[in-house]
């Protein structure tokens, strides 16, 4: 990896495997031997299997549920419906609008209606078939545009069913409506007539105007480890839950009220997580497993299969977007308007926050003096949508980047030059008025990306007829005739950490003691390791801060305070910040102890001390004392230094519901991609030849894991560009399997060169920026731009389908 612009001061720590090194993952050995216990690997001798009856209809009234025949089946221990929910009957991340088990109505196909515990998964499945549900089928409410704009459209949730949120302009099927007005459009914020007049004036001033409607399909996170876990009833009447999730405490906060239990009686431990990408931010089987365990007095295990997983978690919001951009002949952007409608499906989940991101970042990192944004998140009877890597910024990025390319073409400019002309930088204000008060080296990134070496031309290949180098691969669909190369660029701006006034924090407990003559650090947090490598980073920070090589990472559970969610690219920042803060506190205590015990020479109390190589050292006197001597053996009444600390990032605020102004974001991250593709323009097949990225991460914490984040994120963006879409027709998913929902294989994925910049953010620990999401934004528009370059087609839908490339209207 070419790493440049190391402006951050190198840390003085000499401890091996500290911050900036690439030590091995502490869970790596267990993961390659098959011993790592994922949530679906939980097993107990007397456990039962849970199963879920799901609605076959997207929209129906429930007149009755009869479980008699299911209960009669031998091996069945319990069959529960909404009547058996002990506490609150609804839950949700932000709005409590989702029934634990459906009552009165089902609002999407696949909604949970009843649950069963039995002695074998097949017995449980057969019991589900014996449950009789009396449905009155209702027409689906599936058109997101009508849900946003047509007051006559049927309501998904009856009036009065939901809490009101005036700050979100909530009404009817609108979960949130967020306008943003700047420049000429801010003069009369809510007068449509005034907006029309302003728009006419701006159009007249512009030398080029491009107006396009875009769509982004519903993407699935497609983590490989299915929703699963085990609930074990406890003697105190509570329950212990082992589960794969992104945020233990937000699960606990939703589970306990549904069970009618105090929080402390619902104890969660993180089981091994097989990927997340946002899909585990909402609950799936958690409350159901706990209900069955408490009812039967036995451990209950749930494991969804792949089809059920498609119904069991939220997806990326599909979006309908209408953009208009106007520019002067030299490329200077004059105005932009955007109407974006994201389909939240049956329940709110993270929809309000997704609208907050999609609107505030809707125009991207470009200076535009006059902006009009109308962003809607709506209820429909489509599959519920919520968090997925990129979170509202992915959809908008496809739109604004496509617009930049169209505008560049219209003006006869190189797409990179148009972007450079309008690039934001540190000190710029995004359309919410928030100043970007950290480096935003967008121009440098664009230039570096443009100047990366190009892959060799097809004609220069050793064997241009090698089918493995061609679109269609060894299927042998072409020998190279009709294959055209294209190049495209994309860039994306992503908010990192939680936004809009959320009091986000993480907690870490750090303990230093001497075991068997050696100092050992124990780091305990509730943060979810979902594959990203946070367990490695926590250890690196502890080593760097405490100068101790041996670090043990305790399992994540609710016995320590919340770490917040493993989402929004926030854990290195937040839990990293918490570990660092707790370490600093431990370190101060150790120095105090060294002074108290007389290891600091008299008259030198003010000399700076450090912890290095397991010793307390002074800048003047060198090694003062080893930790082993200072603390003494832990098992022999030695001193144990333990500190628990919370870390909060700086406060943010809501953007206002009228003009959409406010400093709502904590941090900004950016990635730039260049894609090179070969397209079979006759068959509509694409081979991505190269997908190169330039990203600024502030500070590289672990070069190898960082590369994994950028390449993995780029590949998910490739999936959205070319293959991934949950097909929904009349509110029903048509492709709930890995046979029909395709994610990139190793054959679909090109070599990915990455170039990492390190302009530190002065507000964050070590200057780091969250790195996981930005590459997922920019790779999609870069690839689609490259396919446009090869084909000349407009390609307004992501993913691009073969029929779009060859121009067949199906």
């Amino acid at each position, binding site marked *: 990896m070419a790493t440049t612009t190391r402006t951050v001061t190198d840390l003085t720590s000499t401890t091996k495997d500290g911050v900036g090194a690439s030590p091995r993952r502490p869970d790596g050995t267990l993961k390659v031997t098959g011993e790592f216990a994922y949530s679906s690997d939980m097993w107990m001798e007397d456990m039962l299997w849970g199963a879920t009856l799901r609605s076959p209809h997207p929209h129906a009234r429930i007149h009755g549920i009869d479980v008699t025949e299911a209960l009669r089946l031998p091996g069945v221990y319990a069959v529960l419906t909404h009547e058996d929910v002990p506490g609150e009957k609804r839950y949700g991340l932000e709005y409590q609008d989702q029934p634990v088990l459906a009552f009165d109505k089902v609002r999407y196909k696949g909604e949970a209606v009843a649950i069963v515990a039995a002695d074998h998964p097949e017995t449980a499945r057969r019991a589900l078939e014996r449950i009789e549900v009396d449905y009155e089928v209702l027409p689906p409410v599936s058109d997101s545009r009508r849900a946003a704009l047509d007051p006559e459209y049927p309501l998904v949730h009856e009036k009065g069913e939901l809490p009101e949120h005036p700050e979100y302009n909530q009404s009817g099927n609108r979960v949130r409506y967020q306008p943003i007005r700047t420049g000429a459009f801010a003069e009369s914020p809510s007068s449509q007539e005034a907006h029309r007049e302003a728009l006419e004036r701006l159009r007249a001033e512009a030398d080029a105007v491009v107006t396009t409607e875009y769509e982004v399909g519903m993407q699935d996170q497609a983590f490989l480890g299915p929703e699963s876990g085990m609930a074990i009833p406890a003697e105190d009447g509570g329950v212990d839950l082992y589960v794969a999730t992104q945020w233990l405490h937000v699960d606990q906060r939703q589970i306990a009220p549904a069970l009618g239990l105090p929080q402390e009686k619902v104890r969660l431990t993180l089981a091994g997580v097989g990927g997340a990408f946002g899909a585990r931010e909402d609950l799936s089987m958690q409350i159901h497993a706990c209900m069955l365990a408490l009812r039967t007095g036995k451990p209950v295990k749930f494991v969804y299969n792949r089809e059920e997983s498609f119904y069991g978690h939220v997806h990326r919001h599909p979006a309908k977007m209408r953009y208009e951009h106007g520019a002067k002949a030299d490329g200077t952007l004059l105005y932009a308007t955007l109407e974006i409608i994201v389909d939240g499906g049956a329940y709110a989940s993270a929809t309000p926050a997704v609208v907050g991101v999609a609107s505030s970042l809707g125009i991207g990192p470009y200076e535009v003096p006059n902006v009009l944004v109308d962003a809607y998140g709506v209820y429909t009877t489509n599959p519920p949508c919520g968090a997925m890597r990129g979170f509202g910024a992915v959809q908008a990025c496809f739109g604004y980047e496509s617009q930049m390319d169209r505008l560049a073409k219209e003006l006869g400019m190189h797409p990179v030059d148009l972007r450079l002309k309008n690039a934001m930088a540190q000190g710029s204000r995004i359309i919410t008025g928030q100043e970007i008060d950290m480096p935003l080296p967008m121009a440098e990134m664009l230039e570096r990306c443009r100047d990366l070496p190009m892959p060799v031309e097809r004609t220069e290949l050793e064997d241009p007829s090698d089918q493995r180098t061609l679109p269609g691969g060894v299927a042998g669909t072409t020998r190279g005739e009709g294959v055209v190369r294209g190049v495209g660029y994309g860039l994306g701006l992503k908010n990192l950490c939680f936004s809009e006034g959320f009091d986000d924090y993480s907690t870490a407990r750090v303990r230093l003691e001497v075991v068997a003559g050696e100092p050992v650090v124990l780091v305990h947090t509730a943060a979810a390791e979902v594959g990203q490598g946070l367990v490695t980073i926590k250890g690196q920070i502890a080593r760097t801060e405490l100068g101790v090589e041996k670090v043990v990472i305790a399992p994540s559970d609710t016995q320590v305070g919340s770490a917040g969610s493993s989402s929004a690219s926030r854990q290195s920042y937040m839990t990293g910040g918490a570990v660092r803060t707790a370490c600093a506190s431990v370190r101060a205590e150790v120095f105090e102890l060294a002074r108290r015990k007389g290891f600091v020479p008299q008259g030198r109390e003010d000399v700076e001390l450090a912890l290095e190589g397991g010793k307390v050292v002074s800048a003047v006197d060198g090694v003062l004392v080893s930790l082993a001597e200072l603390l003494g053996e832990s098992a022999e009444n030695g001193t144990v230094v333990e500190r628990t600390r919370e870390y909060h990032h700086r406060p943010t605020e809501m953007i206002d519901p009228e003009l959409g102004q406010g400093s709502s974001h904590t941090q900004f991250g950016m990635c730039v991609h260049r894609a090179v593709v070969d397209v079979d323009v006759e068959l509509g097949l694409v081979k991505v030849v190269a997908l190169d990225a330039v990203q600024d991460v502030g500070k590289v914490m672990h070069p190898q894991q960082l590369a994994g984040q950028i390449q993995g994120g780029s590949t998910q963006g490739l999936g959205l560009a070319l293959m991934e879409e949950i097909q929904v027709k009349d509110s029903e998913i048509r492709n709930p399997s*890995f046979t029909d929902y395709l994610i990139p294989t190793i054959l679909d994925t090109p070599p990915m060169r990455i170039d990492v910049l390190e302009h530190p953010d002065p507000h964050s620990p070590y200057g780091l920026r969250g790195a996981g999401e930005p590459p997922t934004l920019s790779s999609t528009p870069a690839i689609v731009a490259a396919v446009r370059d090869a084909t000349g087609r407009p390609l307004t839908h992501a993913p691009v389908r073969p029929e779009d490339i060859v121009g067949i209207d199906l």
Partner: protein
Amino acid sequence: MRVSFNVNGEDVTADNVWPGESLLYVLRERLGLPGSKNACEQGECGSCTVYFDGVTACSCMIAAGQAEGREVRTVEGLAEEPGKGGDRTLSTVQEAFVEAGAVQCGFCTPGLLVQTDDLIERTVGAGRAAPDDSEIREALAGNLCRCTGYEKIIDAVHLAAERRAAAGSTS
């Protein structure tokens, strides 16, 4: 029904097996070998890949009864193969995956390890040239990974091939 077969060199018997169970289910739920993974259970993802009489296969697509009398080798059995060099506890391929950063969430890893082990043994292990990128991509095309973008996996396979070749020439 009762099913008896050999797993990782050991004869095993599972009782009360329902005929609809897969080999994967028997391994995971009845024999205490959860290393083979259940990502799709429809033969698309490769996370449950095992050696079945020496040939790699998705264990989710094999009915339990078909395993009667056969030899199965899972991820749990990779480290026990003698004479491959590397760490005492890890096989060359396992070692390379950890070292190269090819493991993130790790759910695809067991299947990829078995498939890579097969590729390495068919090539450098059989005295042939180390696989190039195209051969690696072909060999691993049936194993989905959602975390890595596959680049580090390709690095790991090259590393394993290099070390296996070195070990082979000295033995």
